[in-house]
């Protein structure tokens, strides 16, 4: 029983139609996006189903999910706040920024706040070195960049995200 084919029969066909018949594996990324939009993260079950659709091994799908920081294998918070700490960013203080930010909201890198709104992650290059410290917020099907950040400005953004989450919750 393939739940992806069940839930998104048309979407899957549309995605597959974009690629030549013998290059079906190219559809793996849009399909992962599809299930991540549905579940919030990619379950092993979903990987198995995607592997079945595009005809590659589960391990190959898992490898793609593992490679990209935009895909999540675990149920995280509603918003993923991803800080780049690669060398150029670190030279501009991104690692300190990350440490202090974590300290301020009281969770460690990779953890989720108890209210389930924010997950903080350390990622590699986001192509914003010149405006480091910077991070991206992934959630609600969108990605927003926040550059030239300080701990205070980041905390403000987090507070804003929490308000947004609460408002949507109330609806």
């Amino acid at each position, binding site marked *: 029983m393939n739940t992806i084919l069940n839930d998104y029969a048309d979407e899957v066909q549309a995605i597959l139609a974009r690629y030549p018949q013998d290059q079906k594996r190219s559809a793996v990324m849009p399909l992962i996006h599809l299930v991540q939009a549905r579940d919030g993260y990619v379950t092993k079950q979903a990987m198995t189903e995607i592997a079945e659709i595009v005809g*590659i091994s589960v391990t190959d799908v898992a490898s793609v999910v593992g*490679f990209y920081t935009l895909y999540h294998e675990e149920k995280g918070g509603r918003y993923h706040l991803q800080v780049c700490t690669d060398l150029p960013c670190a030279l501009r203080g991104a690692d300190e920024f990350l440490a202090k930010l974590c300290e301020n909201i009281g969770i460690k890198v990779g953890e989720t706040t108890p209210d389930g709104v924010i997950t903080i992650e350390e990622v590699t290059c986001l192509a914003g070195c010149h405006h480091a410290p910077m991070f991206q917020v992934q959630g609600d099907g969108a990605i927003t960049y926040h550059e030239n950040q300080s701990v205070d400005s980041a905390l403000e953004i987090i507070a804003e995200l929490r308000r947004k989450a609460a408002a949507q919750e109330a609806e």
Partner: protein
Amino acid sequence: MSKMVTLSIDGRSVTVPENTLVVDAAKMNGIDIPVFCYHPKMKPVGMCRMCLVEIGRPMIDRATNQPVLEDNGSPKIQFSPKLETSCTTPVSEGMVVLTRNDKVEAARKEIIEFILTSHPLDCPICDKGGECPLQNLTMRFGSKEGRFLFDEKMHLAKHVPLGELIWLDRERCIQCARCVRFQHDVVDDPVLDFHNRGRSLEIMTFSEPGFGSYFSGNTTDICPVGALTTADFRFGARPWEMKPAASLCAQCPVGCNLEYTVRREAKSGGATVIKRALPRQNESVNEIWICDKGRFGYHYTQDPARLGQPLVRRDGELVPVTFEEALKIIAEKAAHQPFQILAGGKLSTEDLAALRGLAQESGGKAWLHTYMSGGFTPHYGLSADANLGALGQGDAVLVAASDLHEEAPIWWLRVKQAAERGAALIVMNPRPTRLKKYARHVIRYAYGEESLAVAAMAEENLALAGEEIRAAAETLKSARNLVIFYGSEGLGLTGSKGLEQALADLLERGGFTGRENSGLIGVWHAPNLQAGFELGLPPAEGLADLPAGGVLYLAAADPAGDDPRQAAYFSGREFVIVQDLFLTESAKLADVVLPVLAYTEREGTFVSGERRLQRYYPALAARPGLKADFALTALIAKSLGYELEGRAASLALEKLAASQPAFEGLNYLKLAEVHEQWPQVGGSDLYYGGTSYANRQGLGKHLSRAAKPEPDAAPLREGIRDVPKNALRLVPHTRLYDAGSTFAPSRLLDQRRARRQLRIHPRSAEPLGLQQGSQALIELEGAPFTAEIVLDETIPGGTALYPRSLGVPMNAPFHAVVKPVFDKSAS
């Protein structure tokens, strides 16, 4: 012949074929360029940077398109500003490669230092320590001190099971992707891959069971560090403490060359035991790979249940006696009686020859215990310098009634590679197998109509045949060579005979007989059945085929174990001798049971399915008091007054070579001949082949073509008799991990062992009330049994597939009523 290119490496002028990589060109000429990620059997990726060298090319004047010359007239060489990876750079005319200057040495030093930044100081406890490319290259090229701080090393999980067979040590992994590439590119079992990236990169598997591949053990060989280790050997011994011994794999007819490494072991009470099996290079048989069955399947040879003393029946009980007593009893009881002998395909060529000799001397007959027919293979099989590795564009391979991946994984790999090189692969099977992916033509037929399908392809009049058969026949017409593999899926002896003759006919009509790389290969269920067929032993599925009366002598054959109904045939005999490693079901019914040496404790030869006669050497000392099969047979013969060669295996083979034309001119010395193979493995530069051994003990020799056999006039199709009402046709298939007596003692593979399952199409299952996972009762007359139901849409309707060697007392197709077993506790 491809174009040759001349270049200079370290001042030496070398000539190699076009498109050779610089690293290989150097190696072929005795210059070692260190590598980690590069492996000659896989496409280069240039991940580790260890192979950096300085490369210069002749400078070309852009205006005139002519080489720029130095003052002295030699071409001016332009060196690239940076070092290049020699594993990704193909050679070009006039290239100048420097592998030993300061710049290169400095680069190597830095790459090693970089790789070691987070490599643990595990060498004293690491299984790879002593045969580790990283260790060796660090000693040779590394810096004496690291500039990184010991305290800041990354610490990662050291004990990650990728499955129950292979363990991963994440800290040791240097991310060369050899294992990942092997699984993807070489064996197309993409169950390993990288997860995450950068420093967090790790090897992972999501397959079920973990690292579910029949070739998984090979990754531990090619791993250039100790990151991947086998559960079988983990911490077993240090490499330098073990003694290697050349041997062969005795699990299937491929005849993979092995090296057993042995050591005295306190856990086994101070006995010397085999610690592990590693591949030994033979590029025309198994290259440098072996399957996991071969790697982990040797345990039966040192199983504690092995017999150590002869047993004779006294007052209905088997009691231990000395060999002298046992032989005396045989001499008394068996004198002047004809010997009816049933010999197993696990015996060596010499053993089979001795058994045949005894049968002839005594006026009896020797039979080969098998459900496959192979009488045509000595004539139609491969001979001379045939090599599956040479098949490619313009050649054709036909695989009939065999799931090669399950029956002989290395042949599967060889056929896959041939197809990838351009050979036309034709797969004939009633259900899809793993080879389908590489096939040019897939021919489906109903179980039982194998020979009809083949005959249709061979017929001139193809109008009535299906489209695929016609297309395949068309392909065969233009093929240069045709290699045919035929297995035993869905076949008993009768069906096998029919298929074999049909295939021989196909070869004959296509004019392939006598061509260099063409022939018929039987995918036997035992390592040396081919030798039995070469000796002209007739096949026998069971004791029913043997004439009654006289002495029954079973060697490495256990008909009663395969089918309890065979026990009935024991009672009518004057005297029954069983010669085996274990106290088998047949042995329990014998009058005299004679223990023998395992093949790892003696010398001998096997003939592979490709008709290659290969030698194996003793890995362990002979168990005190025990003898090899042929020597024991010779002793029995001697006690009855017949003369057989029982002194040494080499003499027995010489005697055979003198009388059997196919073996003419072959002897143990010839079989021990080796020649240089590419890639060179097993030297001090372990990084090239990993821990596979170089072949110094013999590549074996092909048997020459035997005389043409007479076609059998007997019915060629399985007779369908007394079909019970509502019966299903049950057909056998072979699974790699079965419960045969020479594989069951490898407990490590218990979790992966196939179960006694009945595979059946849902539509056939439904009316019978059979459900997925439920138990079914199969009412086989005289031997009912139960099996788990697996619904499988690839199985043709009206039939069900049962696995061999898993407790089903049949090896041939049969009809039986299948009923669900109702769980009494549930109702």
